[in-house]
């Protein structure tokens, strides 16, 4: 619980290279060559032993045989990522099969070595992998520092306003019946204005968080249907107030997807919120979710005020809000769609808008089901080879 930087340092640099191979000759050969060059080396004989090792102690570089009995190298690679995202994995492939090596690189391996290789080749690859590990650890430390600062800023911006709104709600609920109608209306306006400001703070901090850390690296199984129902439900009151009907059409047996719950909720609620707010009385909002091959498609369409081609161009700019006589009384931060775009891009998805003035708008989001599109993965895969 206590952060001891020295202890952390030791843990992080305890083992330079972990060799994972079921062939004793490879283990010994690699270990000898690397130990001679001054690397701290450990060896294990199977995928399971490798996972047990990194769960207990960190390893900067993992030399991983793809072809092993028991858990395959490919599976080890996939299970290593969430446990130690900074570790550089170098694949050892005996069959010189480019295909499996490419597959491994796609899922986050840093480099590969085809057998047979010389001690010099091994050293070069390990040195580079170790350097990449150090940079990744440093980058994470800086990100953590920025995130900590952001958390303090978020708290300090929000707290006073949250206190103000709490007092206003207390007044309204405990003394509201003693006020004149006009005073009660003014009190409600004060509450609404603090809500808008609180929304702006949430949006700004969400966007800054995405800027700093990329998307939440933690993916979890998410049921898109559940989230859709929940988000639509949360807008029922606002929709009724604006005399807008929301219908939700969810394909049966939608697959669970490896996204992040909070981000998915935010993405959907920003789209649905716009569709309701920029609508006409008697208008409709439809949310349609369907599964495609390896992705899930979400369409949020409305029969609202629509946008001109010029407005559509600026739609995703930060703080851009469409201003005309129809939008004068609509509140918002102008950050909602920037957040949507950021989340979609980070997850490797696509976002499309179709709109016509006076007819309405439709936003189509297609997100891959698996976490393959995370920014970390992309960054490493696009590395020049």
């Amino acid at each position, binding site marked *: *619980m206590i*952060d001891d930087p020295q202890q952390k340092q030791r843990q992080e640099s305890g083992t330079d290279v972990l060799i994972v191979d079921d062939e004793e000759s490879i283990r010994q050969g690699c270990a000898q060559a690397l130990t001679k060059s001054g690397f701290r080396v450990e060896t294990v004989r199977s995928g399971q032993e490798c996972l047990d090792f990194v769960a207990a102690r960190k390893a900067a570089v993992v030399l991983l045989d793809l072809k092993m009995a028991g858990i395959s190298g490919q599976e080890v690679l996939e299970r290593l990522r969430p446990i130690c995202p900074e570790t550089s994995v170098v694949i050892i492939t005996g069959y010189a099969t480019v295909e499996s090596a490419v597959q491994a690189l796609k899922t986050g391996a840093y480099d590969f070595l085809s057998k047979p290789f010389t001690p010099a080749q091994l050293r070069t690859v390990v040195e580079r992998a170790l350097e990449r590990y150090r940079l990744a650890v440093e980058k994470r430390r800086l990100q*953590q520092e920025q*995130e*900590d600062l952001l*958390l*303090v800023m*978020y*708290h300090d911006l*929000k*707290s006073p*306003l*949250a*206190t*103000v*709104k*709490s*007092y206003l*709600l*207390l007044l309204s*609920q*405990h003394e509201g019946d003693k006020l004149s109608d006009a005073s009660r209306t003014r009190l409600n306006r004060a509450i609404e204005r*603090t809500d808008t400001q*609180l929304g702006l703070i*949430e949006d700004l*901090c969400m966007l800054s*968080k995405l800027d700093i850390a990329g998307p*939440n690296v*933690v993916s979890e199984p998410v049921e898109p249907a559940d989230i859709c129902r929940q988000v639509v439900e949360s807008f029922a009151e606002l929709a009724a107030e604006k005399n807008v009907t929301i219908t939700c059409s969810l394909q049966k047996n939608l697959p669970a997807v490896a996204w992040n719950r*909070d981000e998915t909720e935010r993405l959907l609620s920003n789209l649905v919120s716009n569709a309701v707010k920029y609508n006409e009385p008697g208008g409709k909002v439809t949310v349609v979710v369907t599964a495609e091959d390896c992705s899930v498609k979400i369409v949020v369409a409305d029969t609202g005020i629509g946008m001109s081609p010029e407005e559509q161009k600026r739609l995703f700019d930060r703080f851009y809000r469409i201003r005309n006589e129809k939008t004068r009384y609509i509140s918002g931060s102008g950050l909602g769609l920037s957040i949507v775009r950021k989340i979609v891009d980070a997850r490797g998805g696509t976002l499309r808008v179709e709109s016509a003035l006076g007819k309405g708008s439709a936003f189509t989001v297609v997100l891959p089901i698996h976490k393959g599109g995370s920014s970390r993965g992309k960054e490493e895969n696009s590395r020049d080879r």
Partner: protein
Amino acid sequence: MAKKKILVIDDDPDIIDIVRASLQKEPYDIVVAYDGQEGVEKARAEKPDGIILDIMMPNKDGFTACHELKHDPACKQIPVLILTAVGQHFATTRYAKSQGLALESDDYVEKPINPQVLVERVRELLGG
């Protein structure tokens, strides 16, 4: 029947005032502490029936305080409601990363405080 006792731990006196006023018609005795360290000590001494706990406080943050209480045989059965301005996703991801502290509270309510909602959640926390 004896009144139930609630310990409110928050460094902002205004929040303590709002919590008191929100719960004024409920049959509770309210005791207060103004930081995490004082809060843990008061919990041990006062044996409250429930705790309302802020997160970002001087002298021990709320997650650490919650962790200590939940691992203290004398206090671990006391239900804890986290009451904070920090959104749950923000707080848990940050703390999970840096301290390995899972969220161990029994309920989580975000500020601003809606007095009616707080009354309901505290009733639930204390088991009706």
